[in-house]
């Protein structure tokens, strides 16, 4: 700004703006959006040219979906600006964005299962279509678009619950395509489609993106990017890491931008105390996964968790790591195979959640509000619930004994004893997480399974919890630690297991444990993959 003001050549600047106006369909600059204290977007920028198919890339939590929600009027940005065909816009609702011609297909397959295909396609257009278009006209429009996508045989009157997930996804795409659009946004809208359907969709999208019409899409699959993108923007931790033109679009380039080319060691040294490398004591197994199969006809997984280690689990959304964790905790049974835990000098098979707990496996679930805490109950109740039985005599809870027991853990977690009587719901997110962790630490498990436990926790608490988790491991407790944040895995874990397509694609440790390697593996690339050369 200051530079622009001091520059005498004002006409030049305005000329540049005019040319942007003619070339760009959409431009976002410095978009920032916080959820409480968590930054979803720090400073995201994006420029989409007219007639272009633009890929928006980045790892989980990098802010892609948030940016898309800002562009399509679902969320409002805290600051930054969005120019749409040169005009500054700030859509107040998805409807407003749609009226302007921005049509979005969201990641979640948003359909009304009870309604027919046709009703789902034209959902929310009433008032407009009810007056202007007859049902027959709607029908022929839907049939035309479905035909283009290769689904001409769809029975339009059948309720949507009778269709498969992929078919439902098609319906949400058709819903977007029948509307008058100038900018189509596809937020991971192809995840459920098979190769053939995807190719046809891409053909349609490719053909549609001409003249003034542009497309933005997000994906985790590099092959899709290579197939149809004219340009790409890579987000990293809520900010734009770089923009690439068609000629710059190589896998390596994209992955470098995503991971910032940083080596794990630098990252660790830069942020928090160095990982403690275990001394050369031979590793004893605590938990063994034996030929565990996560999905029908999927590959089998065998691995073991050692005593006193923090074993990291990584992977893109829905690649099987969460399912593996839940199977290990006994929440869900695997398709086949088994888990066994070291106990009484041997290994005992674990079957079911209760059995797992009895044999020393404690599970901290992912969504602490839905699956973890009792928000209207006291902090004390929340801490003590699974252990009330142990501290009761003749049915009555022995408060003093219970408190003494809990204090050993809550002091370690730096939880304020004076707040035990208050509702857990009145604590901050970080302290709530501590309560949840304290509950399961106090159960004295041999193996603690953590499903993304530091999500939505502020930076200070995060550091505290790092220390606590390290101390637990140092005391000989084993931790199975799933995280969606690279930095957490690199800071805490000695070994990281990366999941791809419901199987273990890599077990990284020591010098192979780098951010770049984790990301490579997440995207399904093995280190010796020949496509690496490109």
């Amino acid at each position, binding site marked *: 700004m200051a530079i622009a003001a001091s520059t005498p050549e004002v006409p030049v600047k305005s000329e540049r703006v005019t040319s942007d106006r003619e070339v760009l369909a959409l431009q976002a600059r410095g978009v920032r959006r916080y959820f409480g204290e968590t930054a979803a977007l720090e400073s995201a920028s994006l420029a989409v040219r007219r007639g272009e198919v633009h890929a928006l890339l980045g790892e989980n939590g990098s802010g892609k979906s948030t940016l898309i929600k800002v562009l399509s009027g679902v969320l409002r940005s805290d600051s930054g600006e969005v120019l749409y065909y040169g005009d500054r816009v700030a859509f107040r609702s998805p409807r407003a964005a749609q009226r302007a011609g921005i049509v979005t297909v969201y990641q979640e397959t948003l359909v009304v299962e009870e309604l027919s295909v046709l009703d789902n396609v034209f959902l929310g257009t009433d008032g407009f279509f009810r007056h202007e278009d007859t049902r027959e006209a709607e029908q022929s429009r839907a049939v035309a678009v479905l035909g283009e996508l290769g689904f001409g045989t769809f029975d339009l009157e059948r309720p949507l619950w009778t269709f498969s997930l992929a078919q439902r996804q098609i319906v949400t795409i058709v819903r977007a395509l029948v509307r008058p659009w100038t900018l189509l946004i596809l937020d991971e809208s192809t995840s459920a489609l098979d190769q053939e359907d995807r190719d046809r969709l891409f053909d349609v999208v490719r053909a549609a993106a001409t003249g003034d019409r542009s497309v933005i899409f997000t994906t985790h699959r590099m092959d899709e990017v290579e197939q149809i993108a004219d340009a790409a923007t890579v987000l990293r931790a809520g900010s734009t890491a770089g923009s690439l033109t068609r000629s710059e679009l190589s896998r390596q380039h994209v992955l470098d931008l995503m991971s910032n080319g940083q080596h794990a060691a630098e990252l660790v040294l830069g942020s928090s105390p160095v990982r403690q490398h275990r001394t050369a004591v031979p590793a004893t197994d605590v938990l063994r996964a034996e030929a565990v199969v996560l999905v029908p006809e999927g590959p089998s997984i065998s691995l073991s968790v050692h005593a006193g280690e923090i074993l990291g689990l990584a992977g893109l959304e829905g690649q099987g790591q969460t399912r593996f964790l839940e199977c290990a905790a006994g929440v869900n049974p695997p398709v086949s195979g088994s888990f066994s835990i070291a106990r009484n000098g041997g290994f005992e098979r674990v079957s079911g959640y209760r059995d797992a707990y009895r044999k020393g496996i404690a599970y901290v679930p992912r969504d602490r509000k839905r*699956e*973890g*805490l009792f*928000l209207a109950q006291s902090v004390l*109740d929340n801490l*003590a619930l699974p252990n009330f039985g142990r501290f009761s005599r003749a049915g009555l809870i022995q408060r003093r004994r219970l408190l003494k027991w809990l204090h050993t853990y809550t002091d370690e977690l730096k939880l304020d004893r004076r707040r035990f009587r208050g*509702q857990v*719901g009145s604590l901050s*997110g970080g302290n709530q997480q501590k309560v949840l962790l304290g509950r399961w630490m106090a159960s004295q498990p041999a193996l603690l399974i953590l499903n993304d436990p530091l999500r939505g926790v502020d930076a200070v608490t995060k550091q505290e919890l790092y220390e606590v988790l390290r101390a637990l491991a140092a005391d000989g407790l084993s931790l199975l630690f799933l995280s969606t944040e690279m930095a957490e895995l690199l800071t805490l874990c000695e070994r990281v297991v990366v999941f791809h397509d419901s199987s273990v694609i890599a077990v990284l440790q020591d010098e192979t444990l780098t951010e770049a390697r984790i990301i490579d593996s997440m995207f399904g690339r093995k280190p010796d993959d020949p496509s690496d050369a490109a």
Partner: protein
Amino acid sequence: MTEIVEFARRKQALVIGFVPYALVPILYVIGISSIDGYSSKSSLKSLLLLSSMLGIACVGQTLVVIIGGIDLSIPGVIGMADVVLTQQYGKGWPFWVCVLMVIGLGALVGAVNGYLSRLLAVYPLVITLATGSIVFGGVLAWTHAQMTGTVPDYLMHAVSVVGRTGPIGIPPVVIAWAVIAVLVLVFQRRTAIGRRLYASGDNPAAARLAHVNLTGVWILTFALSGAFAAMTGILFAGFSSASDATVGNPYLFQTISAVVIGGTSLLGGRGGYGRTIVGVLILTQLTTLLIGVGISDNMQEMLLGVLIVFLLAIYGREPALQTRI
């Protein structure tokens, strides 16, 4: 009116924490000033007597609401207990055998309610309504609607206004209610099972992951509700000293009202029996007041309904905690 409701919504916690407790003495003062002899000993005793009956019936409803359910079979079970006790005692069965059998039957009906609700994973509204009507219909079929039978004199005495508990000039049922109230309060606050009830109602998914046996909790709680409903039915038998399957019918509305007026949330996990006691005292006083000032039965029903809607409007919807965090 809308301003009051709006204000109350904003100060929701304050209102729920204050209004029910304030209403008990306020209603009492209104009673004294508008009805002659409202503060007399006999009037007080009858007030407490009616409160005891309702209060005992409300134990189960409160616990069930805490776990996030509702029990509409209470009137059916009360009627069943009343009829079965008087019939069997009239046939010459020993009284205590009759009592144990009736309470056992009530608990069984409750256990079925709890189990079915969990098994079918539905809100227990329809299930308990159905079992209640099965029990009610079953009793009528069994007796061919010929209600005969008797009750022992000491049972009549226990629920009579002139009844005495040993040297104390208070009907035994009131003392019994006081003892039950203390036990229930200890149960819900100080026992592991009591705390599990709250956890189950607050967040069933989390309770399961915290190793609470939800099905067990539901069976136990509904069984308790059935047992307490049966106890109420026994007391009713003493009260009217004759068989009457319909005797519990007003208790459908009244048990739920007392729980809600006290401030226990129908969403589960919040409130408790202490609040229900307050709700019972409010409801009984209101009924007495309306009768006392000579309002007809139909008008009473109407006014009670209006009042409950008004109170609920003031209490407001529990703000979802998740939205505050």
